[in-house]
């Protein structure tokens, strides 16, 4: 049973556009929701994370929106650049337990 469902599987965005990736979860005990960015041949790197006591967190061009009642959270990349082309993973964790990951979204930003 997949604990974190991520969509879309792939995404193509024009340079300068907004990339939006969504994740949904069922376990209401999750208390930490990070997004990871992974380039080919590399390990995942933490991009931004949020805890359920806030509805939005912004770091530069990256924003997490969190909807606790809907059990959904999303990543928004503003002014998307070709260098943002990578695979993005949402994840979630119950306190003191390992992260569980979504299946990933392959983002391509085209000029």
């Amino acid at each position, binding site marked *: 049973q997949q604990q974190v469902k*991520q969509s879309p599987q792939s995404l193509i965005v024009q340079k300068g556009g907004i990339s939006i990736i969504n994740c949904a979860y069922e376990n209401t005990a999750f208390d*930490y929701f*990070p997004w*990871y960015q992974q380039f080919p*041949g*590399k*390990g*995942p*790197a*933490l991009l931004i*994370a949020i805890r359920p006591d806030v509805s939005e967190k912004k770091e530069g061009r990256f924003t997490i929106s969190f909807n606790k009642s809907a059990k959904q959270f999303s990543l928004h990349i503003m002014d998307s650049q070709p260098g943002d082309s990578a695979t993005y*993973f949402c*994840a979630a964790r119950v*306190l*003191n*337990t*390992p*992260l*569980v*990951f*979504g*299946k*990933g979204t392959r983002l391509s930003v085209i000029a």
Partner: protein
Amino acid sequence: EAEVAQSPRYKITEKSQAVAFWCDPISGHATLYWYRQILGQGPELLVQFQDESVVDDSQLPKDRFSAERLKGVDSTLKIQPAELGDSAMYLCASSFNRDAEAFFGQGTRLTVV
């Protein structure tokens, strides 16, 4: 900048052979994870250590996989015998404690032929 070190980066092995991967976490990180990532999928936990103790190995195929972290620092993941379905990226991650953010190494790409 401190990093999680993994070796080797790439490994090709024949079916039924033994293979081992090594991970050196960020200094001071008590929690260490091994994840397996199949191409096109998200990482899936194999085993979690807190210092030298295994905290969670519920998803580790114990008939062929073993993991150790004898002195609570670096760790080794072993597969014996390797099967074709074991071809994947093996990722090591570490965190200061179980509630802290996890940092991943670059992984070991295993191909079983």
